[in-house]
């Protein structure tokens, strides 16, 4: 059978200038890294189920006080400099080497990998 994992990409925030000024060679290298990751997932018998790039914390907001009066705080949140810049969701066979795959997920910082909860036995 198979299992799903969410991989959070934790790295320093991307600035707009940084993205716009990335040269061709550097961008091609990033392409190659991301393709290598999805190819490795496919080679392991799995697939990339989803993935998104996230806007930086300045575009986001935090909500506290669920169940009572919500309190909204606009980002950035002044925590560690490694934000969640994006994520992948993958589905792989049970015997896949998830650590080896996660090690191929490109990041300038680290990645966090969380198994998605299975449905309970009926």
């Amino acid at each position: 059978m198979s299992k799903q994992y969410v991989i959070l990409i934790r790295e320093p925030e991307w600035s707009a200038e940084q993205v716009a000024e990335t040269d061709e060679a550097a961008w091609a290298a990033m392409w190659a890294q991301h393709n290598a990751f999805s190819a490795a997932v496919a080679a392991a018998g799995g697939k990339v189920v989803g993935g998104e790039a996230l806007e930086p914390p300045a575009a986001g907001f935090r909500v506290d006080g669920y169940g009572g009066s919500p309190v909204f705080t606009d980002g950035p949140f002044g925590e560690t400099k490694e934000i969640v810049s994006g994520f992948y969701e993958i589905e792989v066979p049970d015997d896949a080497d998830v650590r080896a795959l996660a090690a191929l997920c490109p990041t300038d910082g680290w990645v966090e990998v969380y198994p998605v909860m299975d449905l309970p036995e009926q």
Partner: protein
Amino acid sequence: MSDAAAELAEVVRGQWSRIFSAVVRYTGSVELAEDSLQEALARALVARDRQVLLNPAAWVTTVAKRIAVDTVRRDVALRERFPLLVSAPLGEAIELEAPGGDDRLGMLLLACSPELAPETRVALALRFVLGAPTDAIADAMLVDHRAMSARLTRAKRRIESSGIRFELPDVADRGRLDDVLSTVSVLYTIGHTASRGSELRTERSAQVAIELARALRRAYPDDVEVAGLLGMLLLTEARTATRQDDSGTLVTLEHADRTKWNAALISEGLGLAVVGLGGGGRFGLQAGLAGLHSAAPSWESTDWNEIVRLYDALIRLWPSPAALLARAVASSFGPAGPDAALRQLDAMPQMAGAAHRQSLAVRADLLRRANRPLEAGAAYLAAMSLEHNETVRGYLTERIRTTDR
């Protein structure tokens, strides 16, 4: 930058039919969708956009739709042809429900339009919706590769010049559904045994065919031929594990370890086969045939007489070369034996494509079993000369080696 282009193509290829379906359903035009997607792919390579790295398929789809809208807005003639697109926001209501939860099924129903010649519809659907390679389609549909290529090009031109605008047809249109069933069946055939290369199967084609058959069953739960198609595919798929041994050598049905067959698929398939057989249509019959093999506890206990009877019924409805060949093989395992089957083979009309190639291997095997080793050896060689699948070639080589002894 052709490496990056190749890598991008590989990444989106896995989802190509979904991407293509989404854009064609949005625009209503195959040509506009293709052109927009080409442009979107080109832009993906140079866009400094992190989203394209993390979700290339979604990026390409969205950008292609925007390009299509821009293209139409800039051109007066196109604005008249696609009035809805001019004012359409991106995620809007001209997108239609995906039947059975599968985008591609809607596309297949679109592609199997009665305005196209019958022999073209299935090929068109396979090529442009499902992305199957032209040579694989030609081989499976028993047509010469160049002729198939020309036929597809003419069909595309005809669609564009006659301004056929694809709109989702009435789901009750049974004629189109039959073409879609054919398309899915041929796709599975293409996936089951590759016409060339080192792999026996083209896994993705077989998997897509099964996904589409399941979507069809959800969309048309009362249709007996739809049940028959899904039953046939599942019962055949159930035997996949034993088609090759651990070293990749082809293993025939006769020597398969039946304990390794997928019991869940067989059980599900048999239930569907019963429904399909009740309708007496060609997919119901084929499900019944697959069931007779998959449900037999051993090769020796296979009910060959019943198999021949079902093939007779199938041939009355749909006298395809594949059915004629299979009937001859089945009858050779019954009381008539290989000699009678060889006579049937000799009486068959000349075949093309995969059927011709298989008929040579069938002839060789019948000759071997009829104790005519010299002729068998020559026939296996003839079969080899047309066979480009390395796994099958390996099998034929081994047969030649053991027959000469």
